[in-house]
C-alpha cells in the first residue's frame, strides 16, 4: 500500500514526510525525522514521555497517526529552547534537579509548558493532576512539581 505524503509544520519549520497508516506521529518523529527527543516509554498513552503539542493541544504522539499530522503544526522538545536560550522550565529543571535519569524529562517539560501557558498560577494540586499522565519512576515527582511551581512564580514576576 502506498505511503501517505504528509505536509506539516514541526517546531515552526515546514516538513514533509512519508509514512504508512500504522506509523504513529511518534514513530515518524523518531524514525523518519530523527527527532528522538520525544521518547517512547509505552506506546499506549500511559507514560507521557512522547508528549508533543499538536495544533496547540497537549497530546501523546504515540496516540496520533502520522497521517493525521497533515496540515497541522507540531511542537516537540527540540523546539523548546530559543536558540541557545533555555526555556525557564528547562533552566529550572536543571537547577532544581528535577531529573534523575532524564527519560521522562522531555515529556514533562512539554506538558508543563502547556500548563503554564494556560494557567500561569497553578496550585500544587493542579500541577500534580495536569502532570498525572507523565510517569517518572526516579524522582518521586517532588522536585519536578517544585520546579514547575517555581517557574510559574518566576514567570509571573514573583521572586521565589
Amino acid at each position, binding site marked *: 500500500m502506498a505511503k501517505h505524503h504528509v505536509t506539516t509544520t514541526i517546531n515552526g519549520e515546514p516538513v514533509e514526510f512519508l509514512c504508512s497508516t500504522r506509523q504513529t506521529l511518534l514513530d515518524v518523529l523518531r524514525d523518519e525525522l530523527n*527527532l*528522538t527527543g520525544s521518547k517512547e516509554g*509505552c506506546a499506549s498513552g500511559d507514560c507521557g514521555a512522547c508528549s508533543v503539542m499538536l495544533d496547540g493541544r497537549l497530546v501523546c504522539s504515540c496516540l496520533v497517526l502520522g497521517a493525521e499530522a497533515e496540515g497541522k503544526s507540531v511542537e*516537540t522538545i527540540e523546539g523548546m*529552547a530559543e536558540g541557545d536560550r533555555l526555556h525557564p522550565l528547562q533552566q529550572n529543571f536543571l537547577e532544581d534537579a528535577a*531529573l534523575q535519569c532524564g*527519560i521522562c524529562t522531555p515529556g514533562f517539560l512539554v506538558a508543563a509548558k502547556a500548563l503554564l501557558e494556560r494557567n500561569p498560577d497553578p496550585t500544587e494540586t493542579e500541577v500534580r493532576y495536569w502532570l498525572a499522565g507523565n510517569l517518572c*519512576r*526516579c524522582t*518521586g515527582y517532588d522536585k519536578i512539581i517544585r520546579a514547575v511551581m517555581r517557574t510559574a512564580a518566576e514567570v509571573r514576576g514573583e521572586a521565589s
Partner: protein
Amino acid sequence: MTGEKTEFKWVGTRAIRPDGHDKVTGRAKFGSDFALPGMLQGRVLRSPHAHARIRSIDTSAAEALPGVKGVITSADFADQPAELAAAGEALVNYRDMVRNVMAREKVLYDGHAVAAVAATSAEIAEAALELISVDYEVLDHVIDVDLAMEPGAPILDEELEPAGMEASGPTNIAKRVDFDLGDVEEGFAKAEVVLERSYTTAAVHQGYIEPHAAVASVSEDGQAQIWCCTQGQFMVRAYTARLCGMETSQIRVTPSEIGGGFGGKTVVYLEPLATALSRKTGRPVKMIMSREEVFRASGPTSAGSMTYRIGATRNGVITAFEGTIRLEAGAFPGSPVQPACMCAVAPYDIKNVRLTGYDVVVNRPKVAAYRAPGAPISAFGAESIIDELAKELGFDPLQLRLKNAAKQGTKAAYGPTFRRIGYEETVEQAIASEHYSAPLGPNQGRGVASGFWFNIGGESAATVNINEDGTAVVVSGNPDIGGSRASLALMAAEELGIDYTKVRPIIGDTSSVGYNFLTGGSRVTFATGLAVVEAARDAVRQMCERAAKIWEVESDGVIWRDGHAVPASSNVGDFEPLSLADIAAQSPKTGGPICGHNAQNVQGAGPGFATHICDVEVDPETGRVTILRYTAVQDVGRAIHPSYVEGQIQGGAVQGIGWALNEEYIYNERGQLENPGFLDYRIPVASDLPMIETVVVEVPNDRHPYGVRGVGEVPIVPPMAAVANAIENATGVRMEHLPMSPPRLLAALDAARLPEAAE
C-alpha cells in the same frame, strides 16, 4: 580516611549536572535513540505459556518472508556448563543465562523468548513472528512461592540440586541459607512477650520508563560493537562474549544514557540476541522491547512469604528474633534471599537471631535486582511485627526502635560488627521532627518504619586527564542513572582545586576505561567516587612533581593547595604558586601528558540506615488509601550533591509507596501475566502523592575520603511497613499482605467490622 577535610568548596553544593542540558533539550541519546546505516529491526517471539516443553520450532515460513534477513533460536547459542558469575548482588549461572535469553528444552514463563527475527522493518519483523510455529507440550505451572515448595508441585528443573540442604527427589528449592547469632531458644526463654506472624509480598517490577534497547553490529572480521542502555557495559560485554562464543576483546560496548534501571538493567536480554542476529545477517541489528515485553520478560523482583517470631521483655528489650523467608527466584535460581535475611533486622541490636532463607524457582520471569534487593520484602514483615510489639508493650514505636538500635560495636546477625553508623540519629531526628507530633484527623493514621542496606564497593577504575588548557576530563565506567557524573565531577574538582565547570566527566566504553563493576548496590558515588578521588590525587602528585621540576627542587618539597602547586615550606624556596593551568601548559616540556589513574577493588562500604514517617487517610467505605504526608530520614554519610541525594530518597520512597499500595504482577489461571502495561501495573502518578520531605543525616563513613555511604537503596526499604503501620494506626486493621489495594483493604476492614456488628 575522613576528617581529612570538613570544609569544602564543591562537595555539598547543588551544581548543575554535566549531562543536564542535553537531557532538557532532547539531545541526549538513550538506548533506543541510536541508529546505524543499513540497520535491521529485530523482534522476539515469546512464549504464551507459563510452562511448556518445546517439541519443535519451524522458522521456515518466517525466513521466506521478503524483508526477513535472519531468524535465530536456541540452536544459535552453544549450551553452557553450570558456572557462577557475579551479576549485581546476585550470582548467575551461564547454563541458566543461555536458557533465559532463549528458551531451550522448555519455556518457563509467559514471555520467555523462543526465537528472534531481524528484518528490514519493524512491521516485517512483527509479521514474521506470526509465521514461526512452535509446537508446545503444555505443562502444569506454579507461580506462588509457597505452593512451589509443596510436595507434588510442578517441577521446573528436574536436575535442580538445592544448595545448603538435602533434597529427597526433585524440588523447586534452589538454595537454603542460614544466619545464626547467639542462642534464640535462650532468647525466647528470656522474653516476656512473644509474637508470631506471617507476611507475604507480591512480585513487583522496577518500572523504569525506558524499555530495554540495544544495537549490535558485528563486522566481517568478527569484531562487535554494541550500544545499549545498561547498568554495566562490562557486564554486557562479559555475558555477550560468553553466550555468543566470542573473546572479550572482540566486543566493545558503549553504554547509552540510561532511562532508569533500579537493578533491572544489570542483566542481558537483547544484547546477545542482537549480536547473534547481526552476525548471522551481516547487518547492524536494533532491538527494542515493547512495554509489554518489559513486564513479561524482564526481571521483576521476588514475591515473598515469611514467618517471623519476636520476643521481648516488658521493658522493651528485644531478646530474640527468628524467621523463615521464602523468595521466588522466577524461572531460574537466584532470588535475593540472602540479602533479605541479612537486612531483615539489621537496624537492631538483638543478641539472638536465627534466619533461614529459601530460594525457590517458579514460572515467572527470572528476577533481577531491584533497589536493595530482598531487603524491602524482609523488612516489611520485620518492621510490621516490631510495630505490633511496640503496641503490645505500650511503647512509642520509635522509642522502642531507639531502645534496641544497632550502634557502633553491635554485632549484626549477618556477621560484621558495625563501625560508626547513623541509625540512632535517624530515629532521633524522626522523633524530633515536626511531622511526628503533628495532629491527625478522623480516618487518619501515622506509621513509622526503619530500613537498612549494607551498600557495596567493588571494582572501579578511573582516569583523570589534565588538559593542556587547565581543564580536566574524568573518565569512569559506570552508567549514570541519577546524577553520579555530577558527584564524581564535584569530588574531582574538590581534589584538583579547580572550578567544577572545568571538570568534564564522561563514561567510557569498555575499550576506553578499565573494568568497572556495574552500577548497583549504591556503589558508584562511593566506590567509583573513591577511584576518581585517588585518580585525581595521582594527577595532583604528578603535577607536584612537574612543579618540582620547574622549580628544580625535590618533589616532596611541593604540595597542592587550592588548585596550585606551592612550596611545602619556606625552606624549599620562594616560588610563585603554579596553577593547574600553568603546569598543564608546560607539561610537554616537563614530561608529557598528565594522566591520573586509579584502579582497585573498593572495600569499606558504609552501611546505610533510614527511618520513615508516613501519614495516611483511609476511606472506610472503599478501602482507598491516600498518602497525606511523608518524611524520610536517612544517614547518607556525606551528601556530595544534596539535590541528587534527596532525589534518590524521594524516588525510593515513592517506589516503596507503590509497592505498598497497588503494584503487583497479576496472573490468570493459565499463568499469563494479566497486567503487562502501565495502565494496570499501577506505579504512583504525580497526583497520588504529597511532597516527600527529606531529612539528610550525615554520619561520615570513615572508610571514604569524603565520608560517602550509599544512598540509593535504603529509601525503598521502610515504606511498605510505614504505610501498613499507618493504616493500622488509622483503622486498627493490620495488613499482612502486599499490596494493600482497595479491594484487599476493604475486605480486611469488613472482616474486622463483622464481629462489632454482631455484638
